[in-house]
């Protein structure tokens, strides 16, 4: 495996796998800006076997695994040749409609992966300001860089770091600088946050969390209402939620989100227990 040094290297490797592909298979949908961040922080390495490209991204004490293969048999052959899958802690994602993922499941399970977590995407269409206002006495504001440590701690406490793509501290700092994190403070502590990414007419909630001791105080509701109202120009809102988390699914449903059929199966290898 060799370190990836430029964004172009990634797209070249993907193109090579696509060229003449009979049945291109991938779980890698990279965005240039994110790739650049991973490269700048030395997180991304790659390997090319025949025409199949593999990428590993370091995240805390494990790696995320991505593949771009010209066909399913090519993927299966190459997976068998990657020794890191047997010696390192690795997770990978399969994203799509449930029925379309069956063959890929089998290939990855043969390579030693098992099902770890299932996420489902929920979407909400229409303007954010269509919500009826509720008078809630909670002060919502944008996070600042100095809030980043507390934000990271809250995310680590609430979300699964193998399965839910918790951002690194530098990503939290960047998001705070870009005004992508709304927060509520109580008694000098971070009580809740809503971390989002907006592009044009679409916006995604990455994380919505309230600290345990601040539950049932209207903080989560205030964050979501503030977020939706502040995005009156947005026409499509999305988020990913644990498929079995009925409490969260119900809450999102309350704000107009509904499952849109896309699922993300997170798989972990045998090194992760």
């Amino acid at each position: 495996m060799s370190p990836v040094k430029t964004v172009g290297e990634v797209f070249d490797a993907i193109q090579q796998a696509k060229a003449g592909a009979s049945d291109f298979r991938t779980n890698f949908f990279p965005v240039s800006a994110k790739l650049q961040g991973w490269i700048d922080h030395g997180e991304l390495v790659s390997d090319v076997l025949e025409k199949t490209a593999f990428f590993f991204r370091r995240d805390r004490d494990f790696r995320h695994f991505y593949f771009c293969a010209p066909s399913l048999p090519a993927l299966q052959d190459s997976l068998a040749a990657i020794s890191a899958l047997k010696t390192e802690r690795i997770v990978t994602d399969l994203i799509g409609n449930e029925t379309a993922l069956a063959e890929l499941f089998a290939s990855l399970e043969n390579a030693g992966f098992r099902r770890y977590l299932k996420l489902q995407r929920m979407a909400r269409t229409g303007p954010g300001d269509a919500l009826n206002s509720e008078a809630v006495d909670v002060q919502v504001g944008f996070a600042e860089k100095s809030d980043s440590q507390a934000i990271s701690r809250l995310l680590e406490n609430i979300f699964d770091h193998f399965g839910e793509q918790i951002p690194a501290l530098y990503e939290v700092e960047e998001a705070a600088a870009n005004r992508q994190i709304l927060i509520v403070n109580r008694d000098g502590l971070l009580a809740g946050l809503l971390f989002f990414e907006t592009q044009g007419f679409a916006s995604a909630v990455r994380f919505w969390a309230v600290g345990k001791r601040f539950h049932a105080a209207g903080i989560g509701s205030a964050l979501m209402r503030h977020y939706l109202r502040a995005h009156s120009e947005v026409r499509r809102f999305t988020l990913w939620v644990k498929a079995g988390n009925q409490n969260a699914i119900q809450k999102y449903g309350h704000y107009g989100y509904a499952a849109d059929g896309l699922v993300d199966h997170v798989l972990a290898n045998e090194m992760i227990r």
Partner: protein
Amino acid sequence: MMKTTTEILKEIRPEFDFSASNDFLADGMLDSFDMVTLVAALDKNYGISIRGTDILPENFQNLQTIETLLRNSGAKI
């Protein structure tokens, strides 16, 4: 009956006005997953098979680039 590209896009993302945008990706109207759905719908509608090497963001930027892609893929439009 054959649908227009705009009609296909509208079926995938009814909430957006595609005729008002010059860059569907920058405007957040299509994401990577939508592109996969769109390619399958275009293949079926026009009886073509868009090559894997042509599934690039720049080919799905707006109605003009999609129509150029369709012509290059053998669609009669």
